[in-house]
């Protein structure tokens, strides 16, 4: 973990280059390009239906692009062979919106599965790592529960423990704070920050939760639903003030109505600027 940044000089974790996303004839976004740098908490934002989640599906190898490339550390994901692609994906952890936990397995089994499949570890060691991961997300002692027996917020955190199972380089989050109360959402944000700092991972977050965007985002891209292309890039706080496009400023200030309010909240949250 700590060595990763040094051993891969120059190559950013993810580069999206001229990506076009489409369902059949219907183009969702075109000419999408951005770079996620090492240690970034990169926010993919935009209004509903702009293709945020579709972009995530392209990034984690669930949907091939209609045109363009996705580069992982300089390597073209979709041009690579199947084995190579699987190897890249093993370096990625994904937290799905509703946790995506396998309901027929306990939390411990959920976290253990990637370790058993891809890491050559003794049974006792897998158990120790699973316990450690569950403790990290505040679920120590919940290993024998089934996903249906715990609350939605706990499911989300268990999903995070599973996403971190293989010590990924890049962590993807799909709407991490959706459906959580403000305090839990804030805690999850803090957890993301702390995990980024201590694990040295790069984080990509798909969200439209403003509080989260300002609290953790170090860089971002804004997808416009109307013109089907990205219209702003940069740190979210700068975009709020200086975005060239009014749509972006409006989005980041909740329609421009409560600018003072959102500014105050963001300031109160403190720990933001990289």
């Amino acid at each position, binding site marked *: *973990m*700590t*060595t*990763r940044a040094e*051993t*891969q000089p120059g*190559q950013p974790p993810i580069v999206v280059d001229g990506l076009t996303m489409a369902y059949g004839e219907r183009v969702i976004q075109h000419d999408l390009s951005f770079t996620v740098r090492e240690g970034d908490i990169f926010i993919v934002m935009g209004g509903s239906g702009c293709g945020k989640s579709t972009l995530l599906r392209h990034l984690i190898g669930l949907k091939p692009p209609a045109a363009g490339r996705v580069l*992982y*550390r*300089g*390597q073209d994901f979709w041009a690579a062979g199947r084995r*190579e692609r699987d*190897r*890249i994906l093993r*370096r990625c952890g994904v937290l799905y919106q509703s946790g995506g936990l396998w*309901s*027929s397995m*306990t939390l411990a089994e959920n976290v253990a599965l990637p370790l058993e499949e891809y*890491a*050559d*570890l003794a049974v*006792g*060691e897998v158990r*120790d*790592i699973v*316990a*450690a*991961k569950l*403790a*990290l997300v*505040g*679920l*120590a*002692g*919940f*290993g*024998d*529960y*089934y*996903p*249906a*027996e715990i609350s939605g917020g706990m499911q989300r955190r268990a999903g995070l423990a599973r996403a*971190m199972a293989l*010590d990924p*380089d890049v962590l993807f989050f799909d709407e991490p704070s959706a459906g959580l109360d403000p305090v839990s959402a804030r805690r999850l944000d803090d*957890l993301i920050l*702390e*995990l980024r*700092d*201590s*694990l*040295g991972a790069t984080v990509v977050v798909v969200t439209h939760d403003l509080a989260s965007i300002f609290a953790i985002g170090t860089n971002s891209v804004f997808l416009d639903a109307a013109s089907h292309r990205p219209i702003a890039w940069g740190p979210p706080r700068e975009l709020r003030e200086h975005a060239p496009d009014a749509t972006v400023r409006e989005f980041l200030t909740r329609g421009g109505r409560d600018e003072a309010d959102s500014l105050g909240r963001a300031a109160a949250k403190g720990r933001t600027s990289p």
Partner: protein
Amino acid sequence: MTNGLPDQVAGSPAGVAEGGRVRVASAADGTAAIAVAGAWVRTAVRPTAEDILASLRDLAPQRARIDDDGLVAWDSTLLACLLKVRGECRRRGIEVTVQGLPAGLQTLIRLADAVPDRGASSSPDASATTAVHQVGHLAIDRATRLAATVRFVGEASLAILNVSRGRARFRWPEVAQLLHACGPDALGIISLIGFLMGLILAFVGAIQLRMFGAQIFVADLVGIGVVREMGAIMTGVVMAGRAGAAFAAQIGTMQVNDEVDAFRSLGINPVEFLVFPRLLALTLTMPLLCLYASAMGLLGGAVVGVGMLDLGWVQYWRETRQAVGLNDLLVGECMGAVFGVLVSLAGCLRGFQCGRSSLEVGRATTSAVVTGIVWIVVATATITVMCSVLKI
């Protein structure tokens, strides 16, 4: 790919030489110093938590200190190991400090501590251990399920009553869709099963009856068997697998997605809204499917009769008409209608009893098919006994 993943680092000669190392030494005033070093990663050779604990046991310190003595790389294996060592030390009353570790690792250890372990690490329903417990749980479980079944049948009856008063809420387009799914869509499988059923009955009868030169009675056997009993039973079993399972899976998934709750909160009775259309659709289509299955069965029997026993088509048909009375047909049709009610109720019941996970949907579906078939068999036995008592 030159991204230097840890497994590649470890694969290089330098990586192998540089595995994880630990040194446990006794320092002044009863403090044990645990110094970790090297590349402590998944793919490298490294000491286990048990090794460290064994060394500690020999020293029997009051306090312990974990320090970084030249860590080159580390991942979750080190974190898991240190957490285990620390947990074990705490149990033994040894205080452990980690200030000498890299900042990232300290943060992770602090995070892991933020929420204390709940201790009892088992889910609530995994507590039944002894045989007595299990029997008790089983009995309670069965009783609750029986109560739920009775309750559901009651609710369904009320729903039907409401419909007859014209007050029930459901959508006719849904009934039409279900009629299509339960009727025409099932014709393929019903054709095959019906035809083969007649064929098999005729074969079995032919072997016995030919010994007495009574081949012609194959037509009687197939006619009465298929029209009166087997047509309805086989159709019922097929529909339990087709429609009953579909009802349970659909309602179960609706349960998982809060759709059933959405009906309740709108003041719409989900039993009325979901069960009645299904009950209606299957009860209407089952007799028709039975009729069709019986026709296919007669055809199957005739193929054997004509092809194997040298009977003529007309001869076979005459014999069948003579053997099969209207009451046989009515009994078969009634059984079909009854099975339609039972299969749809079983499917909906298990759907409504479904828990809130995908695992439960699978269970509900299985249970719906099994329940449907069991009810069919019990109903057949009951109806047959009733018919013989009433001499129908």
